[in-house]
């Protein structure tokens, strides 16, 4: 039996006790998946998994608080689930986790860049282990998975769901690489270069808040301080400064909480590389507190606690 069949069997056996199970189905064409809310066995037929099922479905969980929900998670998504549990934002008893052993997902941005023209509507997709062939406007292009894998998958340390009531598929190994070349390259730039980069990049931002809405850890929803009057943190001018301020509010609120699922960057319509900020912040958290969000249950986020003597913080002398 394929992992998909295993998964369907497992969901079928639990569906009766659940309000719904969140998974993926094919979207408007074969290349794009979209979230699926499984309420009946009939819905189950539409379930898909695999490299095209890119969404981190944990984003839906805080909104479904109070309901009994099942969720299908990849390794990276499972970290978000753990982090939400650790922050008391969802309830373990109301949750059934169907974990996947994931071999990576695609980056639609990379696919788009690799195709000669924007395909618009994709007519057919053929997936193999190493390749993805896309047919659009009668023309077929074969892409290598290595070229179009999402950044996060290239350095994935947690391919298998870290929390699961049911785990399907055969466990995958974590990647050898732990840092991305582009990240290192950017961090090595001078402060002036980085400043200019963000100034320019933020002038593209249209403040659509897609990054926020896609983020599984952004649980404030309608009460985000970026769009409130009391407190009034952010002006409405669409200037690079205010846009950057918004991003810094987002990163600040993710300190020690971000699970690096990359949904923010995936959702950005103007291709702002938001993960540059998050990966850097996560590295600092790791260095100082030896903390990686969502990798273990019962972890306290580092900013919600303290030590009288901080080994990781060197007091600067004056």
């Amino acid at each position, binding site marked *: 039996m394929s992992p998909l069949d295993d998964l369907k069997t497992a969901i079928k056996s639990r569906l009766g006790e659940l309000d719904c199970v969140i998974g993926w189905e094919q979207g408007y064409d074969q290349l794009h998946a979209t979230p699926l809310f499984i309420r009946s066995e009939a819905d189950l037929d539409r379930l898909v998994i695999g490299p095209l099922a890119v969404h981190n479905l944990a984003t839906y969980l*805080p909104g479904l608080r109070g309901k009994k929900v099942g969720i299908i998670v990849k390794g990276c998504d499972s970290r978000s689930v753990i982090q939400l549990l650790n*922050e*008391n*934002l969802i309830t373990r008893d109301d949750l059934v986790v169907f974990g996947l052993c994931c071999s990576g997902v695609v980056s639609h941005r990379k696919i788009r860049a690799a195709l000669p023209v924007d395909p618009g509507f994709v007519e057919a997709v053929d997936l193999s282990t190493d390749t993805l062939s896309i047919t659009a406007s009668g023309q077929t292009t074969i892409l290598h998975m290595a070229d179009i894998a999402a950044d996060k998958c290239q350095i994935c340390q947690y391919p298998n769901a870290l929390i699961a009531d049911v785990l399907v598929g055969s466990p995958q190994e974590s990647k050898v690489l732990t840092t991305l070349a582009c990240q290192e390259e950017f961090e090595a730039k001078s402060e002036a270069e980085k400043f200019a980069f963000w100034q320019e990049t933020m002038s593209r931002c249209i403040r659509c808040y897609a990054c926020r809405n896609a983020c599984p850890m952004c*649980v*404030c*929803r309608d*009460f*985000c*301080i970026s769009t*409130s009057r*009391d*407190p*009034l*943190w952010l*002006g409405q*001018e669409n*200037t690079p*400064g205010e846009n950057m301020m918004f991003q810094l509010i987002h990163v600040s*609120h993710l300190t020690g909480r971000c699970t690096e699922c990359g949904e923010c960057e995936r959702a950005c319509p103007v291709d702002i590389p938001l993960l540059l900020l998050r990966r850097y912040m996560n590295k600092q958290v790791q260095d100082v507190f030896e903390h990686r969000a969502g990798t273990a249950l019962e972890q*306290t986020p580092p*900013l*919600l*606690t303290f030590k009288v003597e901080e080994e990781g913080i060197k007091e600067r002398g004056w």
Partner: protein
Amino acid sequence: MRIGVFICHCGSNIAGTVDCPKVAAKALTYPDVVFSTDTMYACSEPGQDGIIAAVKEQQLDGVVVASCTPRMHEQTFRRAVERAGLNRYMFEMANIREHVSWIGKIMEDNTIKAQELVRMAVEKLRRNRPLIPKRFETVKRVLVIGGGVAGIQAALDCADGGQEVVLIEREQSIGGKMAKLDKTFPTVDCSSCVLGPKMVDIAQHPKITLYACAEVESVGGYVGNFHITIRRKATYVDWNVCNGCGLCLEKCPSHKHPDPFNENLCTAPSINIPFPQAIPKKAAINPQSCLKLTQGKCGICATVCPLKCIDYEQKDELVDVDVGAVIVATGYDLFDWHKYPQYGQGRYPDIITSMQYERLLSASGPTGGQIKRPSDGKEPKNIVFIQCVGSRDRSVDRPYCSGFCCMYTAKQAILTKDHLPDSQSFVFYMDIRSPGKLYDEFTRRAMEEYGAHYVRGRVSMIYPQDDKLLVRGADTLAGTQVEVQADLVVLAVGAEAAAGAAQLGEKLRVCPDQYGFFVESHPKLKPVETNTAGVYLAGACQGPKDIPASVSQGSAAAAKVLGLLSKKELESDPAVARVNQPRCVGCGKCIQTCPFGAIKEVADRFGNPKAEVIDTVCQGCGICTVTCPQGAIQLEHFTDNQILAEVQALCPPKIFANYE
């Protein structure tokens, strides 16, 4: 909103380096400011009257005063605006004295800085709202920590004032350092005759509960409602029964342990009452030396005790007590002179501390009041006193003056002559500090009538020569080196912060200064208050003090406590955290981080979890406000919007308008 701004000259303190009229004129251009003026002394009666008049005439609903630090006069002005009919929180202060006029030299820069600080205060005030304090009842009981003379005085004054008092003392008896002294300066009256009756009063006062051998285990709560846990250390004697007959002391076969009450000049039995006038007069077993407790044999005291009150199985006991106020009177320790290797580090028995010398002088001491040197029991002839041992000395990290050593050394020189008319005292000193009433006359008497030879200089080394101690010092007035063949050397050791003060301070949230003494709220105006409401200081725990000063402070602290508890109810500071419930997602992060347990989880009417602040418990630190990502819990008077307004006032956004 109608705001009035008052720029204080503070005489020339501010006006000397700040153009006050210019600052006042500028303030009129700020939003909502309808009235602005400069004034000579804003805090004076005419100054306050001026503010009140302006509020009424101009129908102001907020006031900014730019003057000194709010730590000085914020309360003064809040009361003034309240008299004018405004809520006291509709007031802001700009600190243009300590933070401007006193630290900057250039008038132009200072003036601009003052203008910006006023602007900041105006922007903050525009976002203030009236706050109403909650009222709460207080526990009519006082905890006094430390049973030295300061604590005794504080406890008696509080009890006489009608409040219940719990007095706790770490040692077996109250009395502190004073109980060990022979005589006191400048009257040379008997220390135990002065202190003894007060100690008895403590034991007999119906309103005082005394716990000796006890320490503070933990502190919770806040002014008016502290929850204290006291650890009563095991004494292995049932003090409810023991009547202090002393039979056990006589029969105890293990009496080789140094006697701390006698400064280790002699030994004491393992079950002991430290001194005849001890309060409480109860025996206690030293678990380090008792044969029964260390080796499991003996048990003689249990056999001889007529009241059968020995209990080798006794354990520490925790006692909970609720009090409305706390007086800290934990005193001081004597400097450990072994830090001076040139004084022999204990190799020479005839070099002793001034406190050991007190015990030699005392009729109840180990020599029955005869001055005999420890090495051979001979009466000394030449006695050298060395002052400033552990005082005014950077090399041992004690740069401060201990204040009382000059006086007690003069007293000891006088007593020496009284005891041994043929003796000669030499006093090495750097400066004589005797500013108290009749103090300088006293030191003069030591020199003039009692013939003490005062030598201005330090002593560099002491070493034995035959059966004498060769003391080599300097006489800087003669400009030369001097030597004395001494029979006994007395080191006038200085005072240092008591061991354990730091830990107690942490529990009570009272800060230590750089030397470990507790910091008072204001060095002049609030000498016995601390920064923690309801906690007061008395005696040498705040800094070295002699007996009269310690007693005065004990009374002063008691007066403060009586004032506090005379009110039926106290008002809580309304600048506490407040939850905007719709915004709250019920994650509980604020509950997790609050150091005071002031936030609880409640359910809204749909059953969703929400945070709620307990007003009287909240101390107003604002940790929760920063913790909450959606800004749902805001610290009143320091809300995000108020602080952001201050930031914006200081850093006005530089936006080039790219839109029409």
